[in-house]
């Protein structure tokens, strides 16, 4: 079977028509993992034994004609999403041996569909980074060019989908961590509206920004997964009580007359020419389909990275204070309680996580709070206002997902400021709690994928998927060669 060209729809059909059993499908993916993951390093933990048991259970449902959308479908899960009894490390030495005693809400929902877990995908440590090179256990490589980064923080999730080691995966997105690696690895990634998916069981990084979402081979596949994982959860007070809907309901509908806005600041000098050309060519294609292109501006964009890092790091400093080595996690040494906690944290966290904790505490500390944290909150209000103004005259906003294609390993991960500035195209979406999807829209001269981001109104993932699907149908997508 050519795993690279499979969609969740094609796998569903094969399973339901008994062309393949759930166990055989599972085996196909584990065979692929065995031959490929030693090059890509996409997984931290592979769960073959567990998967074969789950595949047998899924087959029973299929045989009874009771299959749901994801019954028997193998998926990879980012390693910051808790899985009962299965190691969940956040790619950190701090949680190197952590076995969660419960499932995240999204895992409960996937299990209710009888999905099959292939394994836990690598990521930047505690989801802090854009390269997956801060992972303590698997520094993932880009399947399109193994000398390049896969992006991050959900770099493992994007890479295993790109390399056909899973047909789809779950990631999490705090400032672009689903969309940017999807762009770098040439796959599709959806960051849902904040509150669409419960964060219960997602190891918290920045609670007002984090959101779980799918990475897959198409927008429709993302919609299939979102249909399953969305919904109100009483254990996450920020999850929204929205009526059930089919996020793929608008797929195939004409986009004639749809207004697509292009904020000029996203196409500035800092964005590579090849990226600009590919995204503008996609805009032109939309125009040919009958969409109306609208010029617009987001003046606050140049301050967005700083505002994002101040808010996210402040929340991270608070959230990560729970890691003291007492109830779980790496236990350090010390003669006193304080010495033990400091030793646990100093040995358990990597350099980038420590820098974010220091920055967060700096922004929140006496004398700096008004100048940094409150100012960042003011910018957050301004960014939301500017998005609202754009959406008064547009249905969708189109931007590059990242200013560059995937860069060479070692080229910029050691420069924190350079890394932070690379998030310029994605962070405002999290700040404004909006949904966005990254879709492959071209390739540069070296054959590296270029992604474009479609940003929608709050709760309007259906229009995003409709618009992304319209482009995907006319786009000649390439697959990685590993």
């Amino acid at each position, binding site marked *: 079977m050519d795993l690279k060209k499979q969609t969740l729809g094609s796998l569903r059909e094969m399973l339901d028509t008994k062309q393949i059993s759930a166990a055989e499908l599972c085996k196909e993916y584990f065979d692929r993992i065995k031959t490929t993951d030693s090059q890509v390093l996409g997984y931290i933990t592979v769960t073959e034994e567990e998967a074969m048991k789950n595949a047998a259970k899924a087959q029973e449902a299929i045989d009874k004609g009771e299959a749901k959308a994801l019954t028997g479908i193998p998926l990879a899960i980012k390693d910051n999403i808790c899985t009962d009894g299965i190691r969940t490390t956040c790619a950190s030495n701090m949680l190197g*041996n*952590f*076995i969660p*005693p*419960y499932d995240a809400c999204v895992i409960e929902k996937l299990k209710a569909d009888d999905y099959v877990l292939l394994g836990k995908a690598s990521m930047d440590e505690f989801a802090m980074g854009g390269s997956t090179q801060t992972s303590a256990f698997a520094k993932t490589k880009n399947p399109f060019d193994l000398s390049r980064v896969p992006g991050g923080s959900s770099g493992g999730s994007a890479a295993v989908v790109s390399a056909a080691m899973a047909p789809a995966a779950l990631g999490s997105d705090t400032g672009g961590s689903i969309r940017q690696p999807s762009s770098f690895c040439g796959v599709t990634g959806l960051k849902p509206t*904040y*509150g669409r998916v419960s964060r219960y069981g997602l190891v918290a990084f920045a609670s*007002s920004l984090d959101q779980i979402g799918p990475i897959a081979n198409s927008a429709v596949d993302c919609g299939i997964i979102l249909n399953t994982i969305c919904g*109100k959860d*009483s*254990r996450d*007070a*920020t999850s*929204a*009580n929205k009526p059930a809907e089919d996020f793929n309901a608008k797929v195939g509908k004409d986009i004639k007359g749809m207004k697509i806005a292009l904020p000029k600041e996203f196409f500035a000098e800092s964005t590579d020419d090849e990226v600009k050309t590919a995204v503008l060519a996609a805009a032109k294609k939309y125009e040919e389909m009958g969409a109306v292109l609208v010029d617009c501006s987001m003046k*606050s964009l140049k*301050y967005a*990275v*700083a505002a994002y*890092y*101040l808010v996210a790091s402040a929340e991270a*400093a608070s959230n990560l*204070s729970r890691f*003291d080595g007492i*109830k779980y*996690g790496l236990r350090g040494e010390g*003669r*006193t*309680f304080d*010495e*033990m906690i*400091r*030793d646990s*944290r*100093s040995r358990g*966290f990597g350099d980038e996580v*420590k*820098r974010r*904790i*220091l*920055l967060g*505490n*700096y*922004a929140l*500390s006496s004398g700096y709070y008004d*100048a*940094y944290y*409150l*100012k*960042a909150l*003011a*910018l957050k*209000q*301004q960014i*939301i206002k500017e998005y609202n103004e754009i959406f008064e005259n547009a249905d969708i906003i189109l931007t590059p997902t990242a200013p560059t294609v995937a860069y060479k390993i070692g080229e910029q991960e050691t420069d924190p*400021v350079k890394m*932070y*500035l690379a998030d310029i195209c994605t962070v405002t979406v999290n700040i404004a*709690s909006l949904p966005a999807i990254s879709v492959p829209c071209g390739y540069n001269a070296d054959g590296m994928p270029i992604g474009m981001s479609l940003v929608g109104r*709050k709760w309007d993932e259906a229009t995003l998927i409709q618009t992304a699907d319209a482009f995907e149908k006319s786009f000649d997508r390439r697959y990685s060669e590993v």
Partner: protein
Amino acid sequence: MDIKTIDHLCDLSKLNYTDEGKEKVMGEMSAIIELMDTVKEFDVVYDDTKDNNSISYDEVRKDDAKPSFPAEKLLSNTQPSDNCYVVPKMVD
């Protein structure tokens, strides 16, 4: 950013650095703070009367008592000792 500030932040953050590590992180944090300083250029004031993000905290769950996770599962991630978390003495 100076060593005194880094020491203060390490205290707040419960982190240790060697002298050499402290010098390195001081340089990195200086560059990061320089980037963060750009927010000061934008003339906008936070308005806490219309807080922004419209995150709805609706339908907060009732404060009902529910069974806990099994103790053996919770303790499986720590140093085992008679159903307790073991920590160093806080008072000599």
